[in-house]
């Protein structure tokens, strides 16, 4: 043992994995990153078919369509396709998030050609059988039913409805509501596929133990015959509710904890303030040693953990502070979170806080890309958000360049105390009165289905 703290040695250079971008003759984008560490490879197809493409009343269609891709394809029914895929020791994970549909798999590199052929079948020739559409709809309805008893999911869903205007796509769950999902048909799924899945709207990312030239040849052979063009427009999904704080209590009688979300509409991923906002949020609530976590957890012992974050999307996703606190300190915890958000806008952060945030974000950068799946996801984001080709090479310098002034500027420009919506999933009989006494804004109480309770 020794009292003297070790000093760091000389740091070794790190480079984000090299990659090549190609476009096949039919318009399909191709990104290839050779990573020869272990004998595995990740294939990730990104299609411009995210939930923002859902039309009003059809919320959930993009997710359902993406999930249907792996329910039978290339002349196989769902059971046969699953067998062929899993025999290779992999599984096709097909789903959609807000921004895109993502179809991904990780496989031992010796099985890459067979895996790519199956991925091509799934994207180019899905069967979309009516029976499986009905089954996936029923599974989504079961998931929604379970959500009613799941405080975290309920809190997230309530915050979305509180911060986004009615009718904005972001106000409703990515997978759709009971009402919208019930109305989806096999014809709608086929229509969504026909409109959205075409080579010009798809990028295939291949990261792992494979050579660029071989992957390129393989992609041309398996995807080269695909034809078609994408149709359809996207309505603005991120309109916000009127300014003014409001408190939304979802009652869960007898709940031992209150699940809290405190937030408002944030900014899009491509906003020029991205780096100062990321650093600002790290200090506010983005890492363990952040202000919100140290205050609520380590000073007060109110919670197991408290965080804040901007949900980065093509349009403006939500910003939220979130935590779960024991029921009797609900109002105290809300007061502390509001205090920390205000404080962030009032005075510059201390040099030690700034250096902690920037050296953390700088230092963990290589740790984020240890796996083929992580590298593939990073490259997909590059394509999705139209980031420059050297984005990952300049990331660390961009983080280090953020100053206390820019953090203060980012807090003042992008934290809006007057717009905060407060969601509390907990025992309304116990938390309502203390929250009303705080006079944050009008308090409404609803049941777990969102129906108002007087």
């Amino acid at each position, binding site marked *: 043992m*020794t009292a003297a703290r070790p000093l760091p040695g000389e740091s070794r250079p790190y480079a984000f994995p090299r990659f090549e971008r190609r476009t096949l003759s039919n318009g399909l984008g191709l990104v290839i990153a050779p990573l020869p560490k272990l004998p595995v490879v990740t294939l990730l197809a990104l299609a411009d078919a995210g939930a923002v493409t859902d039309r009003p009343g059809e919320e959930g269609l993009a997710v359902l369509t993406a999930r249907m891709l792996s329910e039978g394809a290339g002349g196989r029914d769902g059971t046969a396709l699953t067998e062929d895929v899993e025999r290779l020791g992999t599984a096709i994970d097909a789903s959609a998030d807000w921004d895109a549909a993502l179809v991904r798999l990780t*496989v*031992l590199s010796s099985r890459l050609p067979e895996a790519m052929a199956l991925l091509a079948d799934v994207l180019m020739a899905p069967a979309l059988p009516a029976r499986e559409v009905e089954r996936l709809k029923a599974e989504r309805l079961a998931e929604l039913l379970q959500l009613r*008893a799941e405080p975290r999911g309920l809190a997230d869903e309530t915050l979305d409805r509180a911060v986004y205007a009615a009718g904005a796509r972001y106000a409703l769950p990515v997978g759709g509501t009971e009402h919208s999902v019930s109305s989806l048909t096999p014809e709608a799924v086929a229509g969504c596929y026909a409109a959205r899945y075409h080579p010009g709207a798809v990028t295939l990312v291949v990261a792992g133990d494979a050579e660029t030239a071989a992957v390129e040849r393989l992609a041309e052979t398996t995807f080269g015959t695909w034809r078609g063009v994408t149709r359809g427009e996207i309505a603005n999904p991120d309109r916000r509710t009127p300014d003014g704080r409001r408190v939304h209590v979802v009652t869960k009688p*007898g709940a031992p*904890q209150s699940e809290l979300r405190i937030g408002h509409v944030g900014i899009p991923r491509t906003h020029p303030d991205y780096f100062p906002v990321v650093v600002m949020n790290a200090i506010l609530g983005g890492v363990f*040693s952040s202000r919100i976590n140290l205050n609520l957890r380590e000073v007060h012992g*109110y919670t197991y953990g408290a965080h804040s974050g901007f949900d980065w999307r093509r349009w403006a996703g939500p910003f939220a502070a979130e935590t779960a606190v024991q029921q009797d300190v609900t109002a105290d915890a809300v007061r502390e979170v509001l205090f920390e958000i205000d404080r962030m806008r009032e005075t510059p952060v201390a040099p030690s806080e700034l*250096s902690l945030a920037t050296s953390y974000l700088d230092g963990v950068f290589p740790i984020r890309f240890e796996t083929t799946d992580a590298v593939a996801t990073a490259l997909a984001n590059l394509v999705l958000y139209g980031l420059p080709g050297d984005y990952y090479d300049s990331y660390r310098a961009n983080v280090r360049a953020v100053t206390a002034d820019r953090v203060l500027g980012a807090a003042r420009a992008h934290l809006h105390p007057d717009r905060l919506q407060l969601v509390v999933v907990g025992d309304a009989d116990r938390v309502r009165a203390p929250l009303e006494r705080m006079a944050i804004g009008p308090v409404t109480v609803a049941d777990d289905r969102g129906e108002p309770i007087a």
Partner: protein
Amino acid sequence: MRIPYETFRLANGLFVTVSEDHTAPLVAVNLWYHVGSANERAGRTGFAHLFEHMLFQGSAHVGSNEHFELIQRAGGTLNGSTWVDRTNYYETIPSNQLGLALWLEADRMGQLLPAMTQQKLDTQRDVVKNERRWSVDNQPYGTAWEKLQEIGFPPEHPFHHSIIGSMEDLSAASLDDIASFFATYYTPDNAVLSIAGDADLTTARPLVEQYFGSIPRGSGRPPLPPMHVSARFGSPRRQVVPDDVRLPRLYLAFRTPVFGSAGYYAASVCGAVLGLRRGSRLHRTLVRERQIAADAMAYTSDLAKGSDILVADVTARPGISAERLEDEVIAVVEHLRRDGVTEAEVSRASALIETGYTAALQEAAERADKLSQFATYFGDPGLINEQVPRYRAVTAAQVTAFAHEWLGEDNRASLLYVPRESPDDGPPGAGANRE
């Protein structure tokens, strides 16, 4: 694929593994202490885990919350976790900061107690009580694992009680308990240190010797109560748990051969045939074909002592009763037991397991954790390279024989969660026992 590794042991008993990979300038440090909830004394359930929290509260030369801050400032990630028979602490950091991570681990292994205060204990007790509320009490099916421990092991067995513990026992924990637990279990001869990534023996060994070398050996752990349980339950067990859930869920548990033993691999493959991914029996039959389940999976718990527990975990579709769900799951198990499994099913299962295992080892943290695990349980970190061959060697005949011997009615415990219909059913977690 072969993960390289080298080992050495300090004079105080600390066993060390080093696994080189210079792909990126990062290194994982991982410490396994061979102590978990099984070592807790009566009236102190949850103590091993509360103690894990206290290890982040500083040590002789490290201030409160400084452990987290120093690692994060160095550009690293870190955490710890508590299991029935081990507690681990780990960091992944830029490789030029290896010294810092080792120094921090050594300072708290050697000199934790000077930093312990009543106030820190009180705060962490509140944090852990909130962890319990968050992950167990206020979460649908959140009590499942502690109830599986209860139903899976007899009351006198060290695995019977909850890892996170009861609120009452957490309240009773004192600074004296901290001191005696530390002296007994947090000793170099009861730990394994693994270093994986951009480091080699030449640089790592002197650092380990410098920081850990002077920590005294322990005076020996007290023996655990007997871990032995009968290989099978002997008779069917059943517990119905009314909970704040909307859909019934069945956890059907079987006692099975312990993790890493000769019989374990057939058990693990059988679990995968039954419930790993969508091509498994349970998913294909109950989710896709019969459509009575919303989700279905099966897995081993990987317990290395006493007995492992294989669990089939199936959630009903809306409108399907708990009893129907249970009958249908048992029918799938019976069918597998009666007719055995096919070569294709076994090769699907082991291929999925192999890919998952290999892909996970891409992360230095996972390589370090596996090396610590195999060194702690079996004294042989080299087992990290033996898992894939052992899985590949499992035959359909072995899995069929396993199912026949271990999945019978005499070795089943049903834990059945049902939606609580009225407040009269009692508080969350209260259950009616009928065997």
